[in-house]
């Protein structure tokens, strides 16, 4: 994976689903940034597209019950560390009716 040179001192990539980016005009499904934890990643997403943070985490605070964040293929929590250069997938869980 290549990450651009403008991604700060701890470059990582957030991968978002269309069902999330559809809610925020101008947002993209692949987001390069610098973030050391999942919480920092969500903060950065919210800074770029105000309100996006509320869609991913609630005020417990925790990742929403029906959202999943995967770091290195494992379900993560807000305080999960993101390795330098990692891709983080923010995905809706199976639910509905």
């Amino acid at each position: 994976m290549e990450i651009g040179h403008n991604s700060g001192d701890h470059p990582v990539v957030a991968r978002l689903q269309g069902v999330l980016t559809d809610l925020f005009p101008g947002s993209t499904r692949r987001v390069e940034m610098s973030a050391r934890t999942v919480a920092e990643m969500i903060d950065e997403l919210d800074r770029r597209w105000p309100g996006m943070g509320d869609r991913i985490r609630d005020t417990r605070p925790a990742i929403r019950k029906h959202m999943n964040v995967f770091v290195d293929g494992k379900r993560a929590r807000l305080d999960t560390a993101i390795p330098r250069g990692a891709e983080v997938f923010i995905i809706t869980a199976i639910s509905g009716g």
Partner: protein
Amino acid sequence: MARVLVLLGTKKGAFIAESDGERKDWSLRGPFCNTWPIHHFVADPATGAVHAAGGNEWFGPAIWTSRDLGESWTHSSRGLAYEEGKEPVSAAWSVAPRDGDILVGVQPAGLFRSTDGAESFEHVEGLQNHPTRPDWNAGGAGLILHSIVSDPVDGDRVWVGISSAGVFYTEDGGRTWEPRNRGTRADYFPEDQRYPEFGQCVHNIVRAADGKRLYQQNHCGMYRSDDGGASWQSIEKGLPSDFGFPAGAHPRDPETLYLIPLNGADKGRYVPEGKAAVWRTRDGGESWQDMRKGLPQENAFFGVLRQAMATDRMEPAGVYFGTGSGTLYGSADEGDSWFEIATHLPTISSVETYVID
């Protein structure tokens, strides 16, 4: 000629049905709000904006707003949250614009206010601080604040309905509250505790056209109050059951109310005997007339949810209700006869009207 809009909140998005003042030919557009579950969808005549209150299992609560009658939408939940550590707000259940402010009821039950057109919200903390709060119990849909009624003259006077904590009232803009449930039953409590101070399962409250009288559909009975909810009188005599969800007040006549009694809380919660009827009173609940013309009279096993009936302000008044099985019915003659406006929609959670002259 007037445009008559019927705003629908459904389990899978918001819809708008539109006709002219004749209310014969209808068009439907939607689904809006990215197919989120929408519990309540209203217009603010003062601004021309429409606001949809909802909550999505994935993404949480939000108020969706359109300022061009559905062409484009934004959504926000900024500030629509309790403090860290408390059970998070899961969905918005009711939205009530008044004089530039917008009140929002949420699950778990609480009240929020927006003063910027639903772009951001502040918690009206007084309600959560009420000493009865630790003893509020959830109803079947959760602990939800679903009804918001403001005094037409004094906006600091507000009544809210919470399932199943009952009716609460403020006259200082939400700083302090008191329960207003005297005379309403809670049949699900032990026999000697069926008229408690709070804990009743109010299903819906509406204000009559005179701005003073309140009507209430409860889990246990139908009621009227002529003293701002300080006391309630049963008006269920003459109705086929004491159970139902929505209530619709006539736009001009405070004596006229529409209800849709269902067969019973523990009997399936559909229209009695599989025959649909809207029941109308013209004398404040002293007597009732079943309005059936145009409604199915066999094999109808639908229910109607708590916010899924409304009237319009046309002459004669229109009445509308949406079913759990996704049919929107309308009447352009005050309930005398009915017609289908839309069928095969998702479960209809709310029905409101917006007349544009």
